[in-house]
């Protein structure tokens, strides 16, 4: 164990890794700060460019984008009352009044920064502590448990389906169908290749994800001609516009409590930062003392949602790293990144790639320091970047996606595949079919099918194996409860 951690530290504490963390963080904050863009788009667009990197810097950079985007979302929420990400929606309630009515934008942004860093630290420590322990339990899983796990993962479709579960199921089925294309790993038969040599090895997950997430989103941006609001720069300073030590002291307990709410919610697949931040905000409001005016620029009203949504970021990686189940769209994309780097997310990850994973987990803790530093010294720059014309940004991103898709297999066919799925996802979105289940279906399809086949081979075709093993039963119950809860919430 100690030896693994020492090797991990050796892998991590290199100058180039710190540079990549900072690049990822910078890009993440920018994408988070621009309304209509988000961390997932940034990770998807940049993922192909991390192929040539070693696993540790590549994955650290991508996770840093994720953390940075979560904080970045609060910048536009506070300055222009438009959350950059869904998770920052609750920050608008008190952030915008503090910045606009009380003329203290810097104080509001610094509060969001400190709260985000606190949430991120607590979340990263929980990730570092819980993931190895949960992986040990998950090591005892066999094919039936893996199959049930994949069903559990597919049940997340219920929570990302939006208005209609039926439409979510159709999108998920499309993802599952795409995962069957190519040579069947068990029987060796060719499936749905339509005689094309290109399809013999199946569709590349990342190409489809680039199309479904990035191109789909960029087409939407192109068809919307309305320019976003932009924030005023932070140059005209009000003498009261600074966060003091007593402000931090006053909000500390709220930040810690909200961070744990974020960790708890974030670790549950299919939930997301928006739920965590609203829950934490309501909890802070419920415990408001006399004189605290929530909704009118109260500092605790910024601290609570920001620490909760960042508390959920690293925690969202817990199901991914321990069980190989992506809990949301970002986790599905990161799962693709792990696979491309030769790491198989799931219970055996620590056995097979212990030092690399520990380096990434410890790196998640270190990343939080850089959020604080970049937020403190580069805030004015981040605010200015939101002034870049949207059309220019869209064109740059489209070029990057095309280059990225080409880089996946050094073939133009991947670019066509990406564009095709981008258009398909866009047309589907016109009929309210959600895009996220396509990626989840495609990621979980092979796990689902292979383990179902292995399990039925073990049990001579009997399905009783699923309800005679305690872990399987437990996972089935959790999957059912999750679907019921989501349906109730909807």
């Amino acid at each position, binding site marked *: 164990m100690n030896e693994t951690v020492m090797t991990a530290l050796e892998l991590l504490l290199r100058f180039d890794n710190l540079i990549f963390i900072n690049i990822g963080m910078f890009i993440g904050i920018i994408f988070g700060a621009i309304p209509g863009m988000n961390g997932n788009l940034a990770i998807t667009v940049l993922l192909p460019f991390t192929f040539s990197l070693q696993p540790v810097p590549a994955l650290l950079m991508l996770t840093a984008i994720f953390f940075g985007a979560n904080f970045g979302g609060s910048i536009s929420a506070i300055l222009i009352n438009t959350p950059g990400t869904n998770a920052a929606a609750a920050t608008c309630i008190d952030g915008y009044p503090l910045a606009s009515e009380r003329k203290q934008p810097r104080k509001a942004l610094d509060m969001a920064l400190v709260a985000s860093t606190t949430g991120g630290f607590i979340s990263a420590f929980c990730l570092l502590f819980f993931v190895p322990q949960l992986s040990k339990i998950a090591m005892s899983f066999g094919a039936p448990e893996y199959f049930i796990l994949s069903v559990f993962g597919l049940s997340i479709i219920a929570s990302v389906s939006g208005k*209609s579960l039926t439409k979510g*199921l159709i999108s998920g*089925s499309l993802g599952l169908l795409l995962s*069957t294309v190519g040579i069947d790993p068990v029987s060796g038969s060719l*499936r*749905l290749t339509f005689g094309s040599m290109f399809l013999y090895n199946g569709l590349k997950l990342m190409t489809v994800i680039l199309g479904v997430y990035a191109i789909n989103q960029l087409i939407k941006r192109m068809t919307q001609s309305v320019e976003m609001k932009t924030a005023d720069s932070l140059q005209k300073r009000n003498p009261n516009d600074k966060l003091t030590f007593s402000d931090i002291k006053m909000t500390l307990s709220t930040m810690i409590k909200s961070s744990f709410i974020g960790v708890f919610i974030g670790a549950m697949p299919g939930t997301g930062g928006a739920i965590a931040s609203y829950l934490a905000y309501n909890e802070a409001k419920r415990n408001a003392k006399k004189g605290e005016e929530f909704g009118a620029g109260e500092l605790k009203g910024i601290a609570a949602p920001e620490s909760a949504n960042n508390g959920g970021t690293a925690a969202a990686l817990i199901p991914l790293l321990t069980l190989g189940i992506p809990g949301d769209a970002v986790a599905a994309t990161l799962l693709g990144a792990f696979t491309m780097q030769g790491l198989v997310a799931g219970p055996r990850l620590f056995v097979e790639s212990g030092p690399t994973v520990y380096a990434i987990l410890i790196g998640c803790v270190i990343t939080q320091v850089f959020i604080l530093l970049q937020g403190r010294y580069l805030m004015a720059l981040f605010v200015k970047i939101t002034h870049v014309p949207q059309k220019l940004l869209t064109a740059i991103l489209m070029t990057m996606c095309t280059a990225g898709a080409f880089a996946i297999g050094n073939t133009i066919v991947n670019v066509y595949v990406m564009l095709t799925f981008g*258009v398909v996802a*866009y047309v589907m979105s016109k009929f309210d079919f959600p895009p996220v289940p396509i990626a989840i279906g495609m990621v979980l399809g092979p796990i689902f099918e292979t383990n179902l086949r292995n399990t039925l081979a073990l049990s001579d*075709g009997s399905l009783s194996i699923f309800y005679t093993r305690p872990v399987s039963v437990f996972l089935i119950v959790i999957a059912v409860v999750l679907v019921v809860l989501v349906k109730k919430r909807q």
Partner: protein
Amino acid sequence: MKIEYKSNLYGGLVSLIFGVLLFLIIPHQIAPDLIDMGTITSRTMPYIISVVFILCGINLLVQSIIFKKDEIKVLNMKQEGVVFLFCIMPDCICRDS
């Protein structure tokens, strides 16, 4: 030009047609397994998926036609022109190369 459409009705119809087509092409696209392992074959999963498409499609059609639960959406063809350009772009690149 603006086109109005019902999202559940047309979404359901496309899903149903796609499911039926998939069901029909599976025997032509996936050869039977050479070794019978006594469990599911390489065709099982695509068949299950095609059935899900058909059932979900029927569900959406029932919601739209019988329960009148549907949303009327408007497609602005002028704005969507960019998507059309996107659709033909791969073809243009192919021809050029």
